[in-house]
């Protein structure tokens, strides 16, 4: 133990540049929307980009998702919604994150989301919205950019 303490200064310096740790993402389905084709494709894309993806399965409440995100210590929650209920569900998700003191977890929205709802989502705490036609590269960089901007914590 004495050894590691002695090396403290070097380690601190290391931490600052420690950005290559594996990114962990929770891919979640919120509410009653059963369309999981997109969520599963995204899960595979992120895995193939070297990320660790925790998949929640269907029918999760915002509270379930926040609980999972905390225990799994993910950097990002990615939620795909096609049910039209995105505004109330994301608002509730972001509220639960704040309530649990987990605002460090980034939130990315995908699925069928009309542009007119973008401002409402961004305002309630969604960090990025990925359009429906997004290709793999865009989905991956949306996440890596967000994590890089936030920094490792």
């Amino acid at each position, binding site marked *: *133990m004495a050894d590691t*303490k002695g090396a*403290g200064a070097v*380690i601190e310096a290391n931490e600052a540049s420690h950005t290559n740790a594996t990114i962990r993402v929770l891919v979640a389905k919120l509410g009653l929307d059963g369309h999981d084709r997109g969520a599963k494709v995204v899960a595979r894309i992120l*895995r193939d*980009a070297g990320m660790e993806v925790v998949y929640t399965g269907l029918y999760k409440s915002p509270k379930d998702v926040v609980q999972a995100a905390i*225990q799994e210590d993910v950097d990002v929650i990615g939620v795909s919604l096609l049910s039209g209920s995105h505004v109330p569900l994301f608002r509730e998700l972001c509220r639960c994150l704040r309530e649990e003191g987990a605002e460090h977890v980034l939130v990315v929205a995908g699925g069928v989301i009309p542009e007119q709802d973008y401002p409402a989502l961004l305002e309630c705490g969604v960090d990025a*919205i990925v*359009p429906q036609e997004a290709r793999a590269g865009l989905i991956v960089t949306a996440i890596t950019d967000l994590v890089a901007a936030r920094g490792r914590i």
Partner: protein
Amino acid sequence: MRAVARSRTAKRGAYTPSTELAKDVLSGRPIAIARMISRAEDGRAEAASALAELYLQGGRAHIVGITGVPGAGKSTLVSALISTYADEGHKVGVIAVDPSSPFSGGAILGDRVRMSDAAAAGSAFVRSMATRGHLGGLARSTLQAVDVLDAAGYSPIIIETVGVGQDEVEVVAAAHTIVVLSAPGLGDDIQAIKAGILETADIHAVSKCDKPEASATVSALQGMLALGGSSAGSDWKPPVLPVSSVSGERIGDLRRAIGEHWAHLRRSGELAVRQRNICRTRILGTAKQLFQNKFQQKPEALEPYVRAVTERRMDPSVAARALLGWEEDPWTT
């Protein structure tokens, strides 16, 4: 096309030093527990002393390993167990291990699909871990994650291994109680993994007991146990328990058997033996890992030996001993 992001990506949450984090772990704060596990996984040097401190604070948890072939229904069983323990008021911890992709290094961790109901209830802490290239059915830092949960007061702590084949039996040297799950209709697999893990089971569970094929699997296992006798030096007779995780049928039997095995370990003194085995394995495993890391980080130090062995000026054994410092370095003599 681009993603629409918030203009102000506020810097949310600064780096909390691991020693600070460790205090929150001891007081049971989930965010701290989770992050400490991540630091162990990422192998951050800064976390080493905090993890060491947490180890010293632990030692109370009953560690239960659950293993079996892919498709046997491990996650579903673990989910049912979580509910049973939670109902009794236990703070149950789960580490569920899944393989990383050998191609990308990424992983899809799906155990929560079947577990999150129980985890969401708040009395369980479920963490998915990717193997990150580690073989043997566990991740390299699985046991450190167990240490963290142990220090935070979780018990039992269930380790769910990746679906194991023949040689992936690392969990045997990591847990106090080993439950091996078999599924009906996977008769051939019993043969396939017989040499490996079946014989190390403290408890056999047979899933999907509502299916007619289950009783054949139960008899096959009982037959195997009758032939093999009990493990040397122990009067514990591994029971064979049919369960149905879906209906929750007879999960209570399994829960009781796990409790009885724990009591048996403590009563008979076998617990101390197992603890020593676990520690021995961990020390050796960590030493091996550290040794590998050392030369992975500084490949140039290894290079002269590689060249010498390749050119048959030195044999691998002499080179290895020199690296370990067991023999005088041939280069200095």
